[in-house]
């Protein structure tokens, strides 16, 4: 919800521009915002950063492994599970339902994180 509000306030700034330009920009802006870094979790030094990430429903979250050892992204409730991610490998999951998703690395279970979908 927050994101949408921000988006509309952004639109207010954009409105003075011609309607045609706005119509063209709209889908591009929306797409680039969805792929921006707030939807990314860095796996680094045996931790998830941030360990709790709050996102709007239908967001796609991407994890990237920056460690020298493999990690996995495994939902505690078995909703999703990645293969072992080697250094710089990525894994993405789209959260279509509101809720809190606890996850961990099934190789190093001390590593835990949470995605809160609103």
């Amino acid at each position: 919800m927050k994101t949408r509000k921000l988006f509309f306030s952004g639109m207010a700034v954009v409105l003075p521009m011609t309607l045609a330009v706005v119509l063209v920009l709209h889908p591009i802006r929306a797409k680039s915002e969805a792929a921006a870094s707030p939807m990314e979790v860095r796996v680094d030094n045996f931790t998830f950063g941030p360990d709790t990430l709050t996102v709007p429903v239908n967001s796609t979250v991407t994890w990237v492994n920056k460690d020298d050892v493999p990690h996995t992204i495994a939902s505690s409730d078995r909703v999703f599970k990645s293969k072992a991610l080697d250094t710089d490998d990525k894994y993405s999951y789209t959260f279509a339902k509101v809720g809190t998703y606890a996850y961990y690395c099934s190789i190093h279970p001390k590593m835990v994180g949470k995605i809160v979908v609103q």
Partner: protein
Amino acid sequence: MRKTKLSDPNTNGFIEHDHHKDGIDRRGFLKCMAWAGTGALCVIEGGVLTSRALAFDMGSKTKSHKMGELSFVQISDSHMGFNKPANPDVIATLQAAVDKINALPEQPEFILHTGDISHLSKPSEFDMVDQILKATNKEIFFVPGEHDVLNDDGAMFRERYAKKSRGQGWYSFDKNGAHFIGLVNVMNLKAGGLGTLGSEQLQWMKNDLKHLKHSKPIVVFAHIPLWTVYPQWGWGTDDSAQALSYLKKFGSVTVLNGHIHQTMQKVEGNITFHTAFSTAFPQPAPGQAEGPGPMKVPAEQLRKILGITDVNYVQGRHALAVVDSSLV
């Protein structure tokens, strides 16, 4: 005898000099372990440690095994496929470990590999390790590390290294009067937890030990330490206390682990716990870095903190000698 519990908050589970008046000279013990890499022999006899120079034992190169004597080598954490700065050539260091084994004055009868054979569970990585270890010309017993069971719950590991095992890969065997138990504690790990043995394996272990004489020396080997080394980094096994309770009745128990890529030892009553060097890369001492990842050291130091573990047992003497040797 040592009274401290495995999870003693005063010690964090480390070996350290303390004042428990338990009859073990812990400072002397550590001193001895510090020597181990350069060739001291540590003998634990009835909980009392003695040490002597390794050279003392190296007099005869043609020494053959007498009845009831047992000699084997533990290697660990080969991480074949790893190629990051902490060691860009894990092939060369594993080969150096094999050379070290082949040069031992008293040739071990067999080898235990305590897991993380591969870095990413790839067939090509297992193939490479098999090829290098072939040069030892010895029987090798494996238990899996978490890096060996990625993506397939260990199916490939069991197919290659533990065909006759039970459950997820556990098994036991006898050698020269000693009983060996290989355990699997790297699977079905729970969020927030440590290594896990699981109820099925524990039940099997209990039955496996049931009919053994208390005088039989027991060697248990598994990847993740079966004592709580440093839980913050996952260096321990959640249900190890249950497994250890089955071992209380035996006079001589040795627990050999890997996973933490550094040597560490602890004596707890009748049980001696030991972790081995990696042949691939070192990891920081507990709590001495932000995380437990591969530790980069100057190139000339690397082989000083990788190595092998030589274990000797002489029946009737109730003694077991564990010697760590670095690659250089």
